[in-house]
């Protein structure tokens, strides 16, 4: 049963056109029809579109294009009414949907030419089992087209990118060779990756790219610590000495709570442990967020407490930057303190803490129920413990934190909370939810300075401004810092303000 659909396809002929344009086409869609089949059908009708393909079974990596802004394999995805087909970003367009991959091609060749020596070892079942995933890479370029950092490099490809990191992981895991590429990889940005995971989200082969990047970082940390960027070493030194990456002395960790009613978790049995997080303890701007949470908890009569100065960093930034040993130490300290305090539930400020406690701590015997504060606030609203009364007549757009959204599939609670605030109008940015573009703060990014191009946060706040919103709502300390800086550097102070969701909640109750 065929149906008539209309789609838009990017057309560009460099010989005749100054710039490209989207052209509408109608066609008959057979049930389950793939995008590639639709393109071929259009050519049967005389459209003469230019596009690449080869195997038509999602294995050769030739046909990657953007579908509604997201890079995918044309042969694998189903065509939908209203779909927009565009070429991959960040590369010169040769014609219509075909891009010039020579920069990419040349980088691959360069990487392969890097010297390697044979170790004399043999390939064995176990080590092969370690990198069999990396071998499935078909070099389709989708991960590169997803990487927000590459969007800001003007097609220069001077940033190593996920695909080459997977390739490197493969070489490094192969016991038969020693590839002398670690130094180059660091120079090309091994620590610039923010671990946002958009590459892995879109990888057609579902390669665990992030695990591989972190393992590479770990390896470099251990074997070639002199290659590691200074800022990364400094933050880990702070973590080691002071149990937080900002270098705030342990004894001062609870100072943010001065003058507030913040119970000690160890006094009596509390329902909720509020896990404050290093940023909220250390930075003045972030301290306001912690105070807002405490204010809201008290007003909602939540039975909570904190660990005070016994709370140490959740360890996220140690793990993500490759300091696995340090991460384990920190995790064990927290887990022991959680257990001593008879914790039932944990609520975090940061999605990073949330993610780590939820997904990593169980590996060290720490199995606790953990919520991000937006989930907890949503719960309080549902239970009637919070009522919103003050109008906030603003337009807000919410930026999904990578570690709440993409990593853990939590998209609705922050939105439900915002929608419950009277007067507040919620609008969406084009790239939201699982397609969110990272603020640039994760994976050590908060501490790294970029080598070139626009900052990710600057790119993102421009997208926020485009929606017409005057508040950019965040739920993560890194997003808060990155975006507030970006608003200043872009000169958007009059147009948009950055606020944590909890700050809006505090305003309305």
């Amino acid at each position, binding site marked *: 049963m065929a149906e008539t659909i209309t789609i838009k396809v990017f057309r560009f*002929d460099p*010989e005749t056109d100054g710039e490209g344009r989207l052209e509408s086409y109608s066609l008959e869609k*057979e*049930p*389950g*029809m*793939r995008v590639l089949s639709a393109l071929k059908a259009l*050519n*049967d009708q*005389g459209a*003469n*579109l*230019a*596009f*690449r*393909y*080869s*195997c*038509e*079974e*999602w*294995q*050769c*990596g*030739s046909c990657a294009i953007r579908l509604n802004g997201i890079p995918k394999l044309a042969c*694998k995805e*189903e065509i939908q009414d209203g779909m927009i087909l565009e070429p991959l970003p960040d590369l010169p367009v*040769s*014609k*219509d949907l*075909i891009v*010039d*991959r020579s920069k990419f*091609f040349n980088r*691959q*060749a360069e990487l*392969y*030419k890097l010297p390697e020596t044979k170790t004399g070892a*043999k*390939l*064995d*079942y176990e080590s*092969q089992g370690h990198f*069999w995933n990396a*071998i*499935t890479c*078909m*070099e389709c370029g989708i991960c590169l087209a997803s990487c927000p950092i590459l969007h800001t490099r003007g097609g220069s490809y001077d940033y190593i990118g996920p695909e080459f990191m997977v390739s490197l992981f493969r070489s490094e895991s*192969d016991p*038969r*060779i020693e590839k002398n590429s670690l130094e180059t990889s660091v120079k090309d940005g091994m620590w610039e990756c923010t671990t946002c995971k958009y590459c892995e989200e879109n990888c057609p082969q579902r390669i665990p790219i992030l695990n591989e990047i972190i393992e590479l970082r770990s390896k470099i940390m251990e074997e070639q610590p002199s290659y590691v960027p200074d800022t990364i070493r400094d933050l880990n030194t702070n973590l080691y000495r002071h149990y937080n990456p900002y270098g705030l002395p342990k004894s001062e960790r609870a100072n943010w709570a001065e003058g507030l009613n913040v119970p000690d978790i160890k006094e009596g049995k509390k329902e909720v442990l509020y896990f404050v997080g290093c940023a909220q303890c250390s930075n003045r701007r972030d301290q306001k967020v912690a105070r807002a949470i405490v204010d809201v908890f008290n007003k909602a009569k939540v039975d909570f407490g904190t660990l005070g100065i016994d709370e140490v960093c959740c360890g996220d930034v140690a793990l993500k930057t490759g300091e696995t040993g340090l991460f384990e130490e920190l995790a064990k300290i927290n887990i022991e303190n959680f257990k001593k305090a008879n914790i039932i539930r944990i609520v975090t400020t940061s999605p990073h803490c949330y993610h780590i406690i939820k997904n990593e701590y169980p590996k060290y015997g720490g199995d606790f129920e953990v919520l991000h504060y937006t989930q907890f606030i949503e719960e309080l609203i549902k239970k009637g413990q919070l009522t919103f009364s003050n109008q906030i007549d603003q337009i807000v757009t919410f930026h999904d934190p990578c570690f709440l959204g993409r990593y853990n599939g939590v998209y609705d609670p922050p939105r439900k909370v915002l929608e419950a605030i009277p007067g507040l109008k919620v609008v969406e940015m084009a790239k939201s939810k699982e397609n969110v573009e990272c603020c640039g703060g994760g994976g050590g990014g908060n501490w790294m300075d970029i080598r070139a191009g626009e900052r990710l946060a600057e790119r993102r706040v421009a997208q926020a401004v485009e929606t017409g919103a005057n508040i950019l709502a965040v739920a993560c300390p890194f997003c808060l810092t990155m975006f507030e800086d970006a608003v200043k550097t872009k000169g958007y102070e009059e147009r948009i303000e950055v606020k944590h969701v909890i700050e809006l909640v505090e305003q309305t109750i």
Partner: protein
Amino acid sequence: MSSVGGKRIKTDVLVIGGGGAGTRAGIAAAGGGAKVVIACKDLFGHSGCTPVAMGGYAGMQAYPGDDWKSHFEDTVFGGGAINNQKLVEILTKDARTRLLELEDWGATFDRDEKDEIYLRRFGGHTHPRSAISGDRTGREMMWALKRKCWANDLIQVVEETYITQLLVTDGKIAGAIGVNLPTGGIIVFECPAVILAGGGSGRLWPITFATKGKVGDGLRLAYEAGAELVDMEFFQIHPTGWLWPPAIRGRVVSEGVRSDGGILLNSKHERFMEKYDPVKLELATRDYVSRCIFAEVKEGRGSEHGGAYLSVTHLSPEFIERRLGSVLETGLVGGVDIRKQAFEVVPEHHYQNGGVKINEHSQTIVDGLYACGEQAGGVHGGNRLGSNSLPDLLVFGKIAGENAAQYAKDIKPAKVEERQVEEEVKEIRRPSENEDGVSPYSLSKKLYDVMWDEMHIARKEKGLKKCIDVMEEVAEDFHKVSVPDKSLRYNDAWLTAMEVRTRILVGEIMAQASLMRTESRAALFREDYPVTKREWEKNITVRQVNGQIKLDTQPLVVTIMPPEEIELPQFPIPGGK
């Protein structure tokens, strides 16, 4: 410089085709000191069948009791006894060495728990002898070959460049001419040696495993240059392509599924291979299994949509995920979870068994012209065994490269005849210069329809003659074909038109050869001549003589396995023996 003003590239060896055979040939030629250009019709390393080849690489000689002789016998038996046995000897003797060499270059092949190379048994093989790399062995091979090419300064790769004609001066190769799709410009290669490694001709059919562009251009190039083609009537129909749902129709279901334990069932849930071959069961040769599925369908026991059911539900989900990942993935794209349900398969075109005729040095009868890989004929005879193609690529790729390099070193290069260049440029430009003519897509469809109807699993005289008639009709219309856009830059309509040019010729040659062979053998099933006849123990060759297709027969090349001692299986004939 000629009057056409095209770009000129001078080199020693031009390899047409950048798959496994082409790259291996390029590497070998460069190893012999030659300057090499590898010209790929699409993206290097992403096109042709090598990067997506699933199955495995046969010839490891590691299983107890296995040796090259056993592999040889299986190959000739599977080939319907008409293989060129000299070539088969070379294949089975060298396969193992070439694989270990590729591993040395960085490729990884799966290990078993004892750290030995994991071996799979494929259809028609007596012993497990095929190495694998996950479930896309070709991808890993291509990766290692590609790196080796890039690391070699003597090798230049030109992508998206379509070679449309060879240039021959006084019976010797002088070069080639083609179009570079990214620029739309004409390129003339001046070189004394050309290696044809452009793969097979699966894209003559509307549903096939073959990747984009494989219409057998190399066959036309060879034929028009004066070389011979052989065994053109024997294209392989693989028993298992996805039949349902339509979104994934035609996608490949690797033989590896059957190697790893998959079973075929009819509409009555009977494992029908038990009655057709109680010993080899699902791992009988591909033609045999295809014919069995065909018989079941014809006798009313086919699956819901006219094929057979393939089931792996008795295997563990973990096993399926690790070893049969792509098949699982394809199923999921179509909404079918092979871990939980049986799925429908149907025979479809998979491989070109015949091709450009070569000797044991990969030489054709035209000086300076070589061929290897799927493009060449003789190695696999009337039908290829599973996992015998990947070793073919490396073994004969190397031979072609070495010989071409040596030849280029010894010979004084022939001068390109400008008149030939001008004539071909006219051919190249005609579709975009014709106005208001025939659409290449309508011609393409006519060709697809007749190949599907008359040139598939079962052929008969009437259908073959019809096929030839349609080819000749389309050939007439071809002169009036016109395409929009004057520029040849990524011009899909132009490319389709040029492929029609090849398809007409190759299709007709296949039909003529099928018509001439009045018997059934290996991959050729003549409904009107269902029995295998000893008098047909010979090969059919094809040449261009005075502009016409001329067929001939030649005696078999036999070394250690006399055909009279081979008892080929009797194929099941629907409705009776």
